[in-house]
């Protein structure tokens, strides 16, 4: 998918610039030097080269903040903050997932995964999430069909419950924002909206998507009664 988008964008940009320069298409942007040849393709050259350069200088500029944050997160992990947050989340989670027994390992893994995600521990969150899926699959009667609990778990997961979006803050700081952290509250509230909608859609649409299907549902009846 991303592959096709990437190829499509580059070829599209090239084709449009070429057609503008040949005169088939009207100029999409006012050319800098009107009497120059291939103005649009030149703009494309500058765009490509400058973008590649700024990608690297940005990434280098992010190292400091990322190192600070990864260091803190490692301390948080060792101090048991993920487990502490998980304890806070557990009552909410057992209510959201009535079909998962509260002391089933699936619940433990889901809660830990969410706690790690909220703290921005992406590397720790993924293995926990995969473990949660494995345990949810144990509870799932139809092994090729997503259970309600799985859909809800992933819906919450894709809604991106992050408390502090450090990468975005670091990028804003790198570009000399007057107040890089100003985005914190709106980001947190927007994430909350997205998570609430995820839960609502997962819960409300559940009954509309059948848990029965003929692929592995009822085996063909035996001929002899």
């Amino acid at each position: 998918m991303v592959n096709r988008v990437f190829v499509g964008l580059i070829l599209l940009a090239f084709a449009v610039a070429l057609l503008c320069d040949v005169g088939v298409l009207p100029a999409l942007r006012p050319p800098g030097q009107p009497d120059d040849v291939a103005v649009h393709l030149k703009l494309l050259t500058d765009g490509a080269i400058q973008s590649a350069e700024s990608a690297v200088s940005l990434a280098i500029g992010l190292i400091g903040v990322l190192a600070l944050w990864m260091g803190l997160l490692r301390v948080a992990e060792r101090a048991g903050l993920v487990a502490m947050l998980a304890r806070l989340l557990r009552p909410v989670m057992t209510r959201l997932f009535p079909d998962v027994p509260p002391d089933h390992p699936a619940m433990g893994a889901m809660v830990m995964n969410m706690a790690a995600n909220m703290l921005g521990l992406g590397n720790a969150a993924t293995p926990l999430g995969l473990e949660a899926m494995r345990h949810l699959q144990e509870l799932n009667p139809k092994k090729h069909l997503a259970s309600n609990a799985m859909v809800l778990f992933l819906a919450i997961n894709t809604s991106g419950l992050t408390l502090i979006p450090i990468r975005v803050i670091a990028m804003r700081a790198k570009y000399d924002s007057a107040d890089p952290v100003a985005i914190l509250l709106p980001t947190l509230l927007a994430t909350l909206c997205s998570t609430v909608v995820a839960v609502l859609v997962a819960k409300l649409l559940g009954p509309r998507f059948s848990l029965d299907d003929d692929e592995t549902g009822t085996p063909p009846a035996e001929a002899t009664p």
Partner: protein
Amino acid sequence: MTEGLQLVARAVGAGAIPFVIAFIVLVGAVKKVPVYEVFVEGAKEGFDVAVRIIPYLVAVLVAVGMVRSAGLLDLLADVMRPVLSLVGVPAETLPMGLIRPLSGGGADGVLVETIEAHGVDTLPATTAAVMGGSTETTFYVLAVYFGSVGIRKIRHALYAGLLADLAGLLAASWLTRLLLF
């Protein structure tokens, strides 16, 4: 009213990071974690993360940068502006809204591109930043998690994920304008 809200937003922003830093260090010390050593060990990873995102940033910035240089991004924004302004979304954040559910590295790249094109503290770039921080890469999460246990029928998972993204993107637009501009 709005001014009071904006004050709260800025105060939360200003206070959150020092609070989190102090809190983590304090809990670490209370739990007898060798804070300094563990911090340094974790900080080494920061370098890896920064280096790891370079290829993604280059790919996305070049692709989106070329599309912008060809004038197509502005054209697309102009075409979509009437519809988007009806729902309160800045047209310049359209690339961000489109890439966010597809690719995390892509979203980083588009955010940088938006900041460079419009200026970091402008409404479009700030909205794009809030969008980037408030949703996840839905397609990636669904593919990896369902794939890991061999689920082939995902029922309403994609609808839930994409509607949640849509809600997040709309909320990001509205809240940014309400709280910061």
